[in-house]
């Protein structure tokens, strides 16, 4: 079998070359989970038996010449707020109705299964994708494979840390205020938030109806492109899903950025307290993009604080509508930060909600005007590396602390954004670059991310934990 592959692309090639079988790969990664999962809390539910059966089917199909694409036979994790027929959906919550989605696959999961993917389990999320870990609750407390004392970020915590720990090669996350890109950033992986409406979000427990996105996390932009090609496209069960053709995301990966105009956003991305290494890593990353042929233009995102506020207000209000009845009866069963975040939704008025939606509208127009001048806008994903779980869970944390992650603005306006690793903090934790494009411009962000990763290896660096595990 040899050294286990890190990327989907490598694994897919080796499966087709007969150097590796999906059953061998899946069994080896499940064996790794036996060793480390209790420590890092990746899985809420493991689906070993079903995964090995899916792997055997993938091998059998490949042997018969049935090739369903790059994800055939590839072990992946699914965030535990999406329905997967083989296991319960918990949303990491005592409150969530376990009968919801029982025995059913979310449309995204249906598509991944049809593409031959091997689902190894349901991965840890922060409660309802809006809370934070709580050791007093009977669910895993996830940790970061780069430093076990740190959080892997969230809310797609288990998908992010599972890739970094080498427990699967890719996975599904969701992003309402940054929940794909933050764990991608803090675990040193890539993660793509597609355009709002590009991927159907039905079959997924909602956080903010007007803000939720489902998307891939994987080591590389190329692997994210291959997964997006599987999960993107209209589905009638999601009223916000857009019926328009799916681009050729893999075909867009040319490795060349000649002529690409990149807007560089520094004004809102370097707050006091940013990691000392952030600016240097960021400047080095954009210099690499220039070397690849891009042209730089300085830009400033309009109404940065207001648009980010609009995101949080609408998310909390929409989440509160979903949770109100349960929360009035089962307050103590919710995690502390879920109670605070969702409870804030009760402190905003209906007029505040509508005004936030008006801010989003005018911001979309102005951001659209920026994209008349540039093809991409880049900035850091967060101001620093992973913090501790305790810091993350602090319910007294000031609202302004949320402004040290730079993800929410893009959820509010709905554009696609790719996060890719770009270096390390002063104390060795991953840092990340965000690349945003016009609506439905996923091919452009993936092209840039892939080109960057052809000449850098940040995305291939093994986490501290993975480096201690047997490579084969």
């Amino acid at each position, binding site marked *: 079998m040899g050294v286990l592959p890190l990327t989907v692309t490598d694994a897919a090639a080796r499966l087709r070359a007969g150097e590796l079988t999906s059953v061998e790969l899946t069994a080896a990664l499940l064996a790794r989970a036996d060793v480390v999962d209790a420590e890092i809390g990746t899985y809420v539910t493991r689906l070993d038996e079903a995964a090995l059966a899916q792997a055997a089917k993938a091998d059998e199909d490949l042997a018969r010449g049935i090739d369903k694409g790059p994800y055939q036979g590839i072990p992946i994790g699914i965030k535990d707020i999406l329905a997967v027929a083989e296991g319960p959906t918990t949303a990491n919550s005592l409150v969530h109705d376990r009968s919801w989605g029982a025995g059913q696959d979310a449309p995204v999961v249906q598509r991944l299964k049809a593409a031959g993917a091997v689902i190894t389990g349901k991965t840890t999320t922060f409660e309802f994708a809006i809370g934070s870990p709580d050791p007093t609750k009977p669910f895993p407390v996830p940790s970061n494979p780069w430093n076990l004392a740190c959080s892997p970020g969230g809310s797609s915590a288990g998908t992010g840390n599972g890739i970094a720990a080498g427990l699967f090669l890719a996975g599904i996350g969701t992003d309402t205020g940054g929940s794909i890109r933050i764990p991608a950033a803090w675990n040193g992986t890539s993660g793509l938030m597609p355009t709002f409406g590009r991927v159907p979000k039905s079959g997924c427990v909602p956080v903010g109806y007007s803000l939720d996105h489902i998307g891939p996390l994987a080591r590389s932009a190329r692997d994210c492109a291959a997964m997006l090609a599987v999960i993107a496209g209209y589905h009638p*069960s999601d009223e916000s899903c857009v019926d328009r053709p799916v681009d050729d995301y893999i075909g867009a990966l040319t490795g060349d950025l000649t002529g690409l105009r990149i807007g560089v956003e520094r004004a809102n991305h370097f707050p006091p307290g940013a990691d000392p290494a952030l600016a240097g890593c960021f400047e080095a990353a954009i210099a690499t993009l220039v070397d690849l042929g891009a042209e730089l233009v300085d830009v400033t995102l309009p109404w940065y604080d207001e648009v980010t*506020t609009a995101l949080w207000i609408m998310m909390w209000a929409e989440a509160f509508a979903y949770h109100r009845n349960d929360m009035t009866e089962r307050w103590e069963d919710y995690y502390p930060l879920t109670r605070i975040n969702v409870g*804030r939704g009760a402190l905003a008025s209906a007029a505040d909600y509508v005004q936030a939606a*008006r*801010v989003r*509208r005018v911001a979309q127009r102005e951001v659209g005007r920026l994209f008349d001048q540039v093809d991409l806008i880049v900035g850091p994903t967060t101001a620093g590396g992973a913090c501790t779980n305790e810091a993350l869970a602090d319910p007294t944390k000031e609202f302004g602390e949320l402004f040290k992650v730079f993800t929410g603005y893009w959820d509010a306006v709905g554009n696609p954004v790719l996060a890719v690793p770009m270096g390390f903090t002063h104390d060795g934790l991953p840092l990340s670059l965000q690349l945003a494009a016009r609506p439905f411009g996923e091919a452009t962000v993936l092209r840039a991310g892939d080109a960057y990763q052809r000449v850098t290896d940040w995305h291939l660096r093994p986490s501290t934990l993975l480096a201690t595990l047997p490579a084969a």
Partner: protein
Amino acid sequence: MTEPDATGEDIATTVRAALAAAGLSPTEEELAGLVAGYPAFRARIDALYAIPETRYASPALVFDPAPVFTDWSD
């Protein structure tokens, strides 16, 4: 909207009343945290109304009069 010169007591009353109206029963510690954070929270919301460009803008909300009702699990 909280008046600019609202006292701590006013703020506590506002927060307590809003949560009670919503049927929520936070602990005293949680309530104290929400009260402490409320002025900044309210100020950020009030800033949303200070963007002149929103004066005649429609909200980013869409109502479909003829929705297709399809269950995702069908």
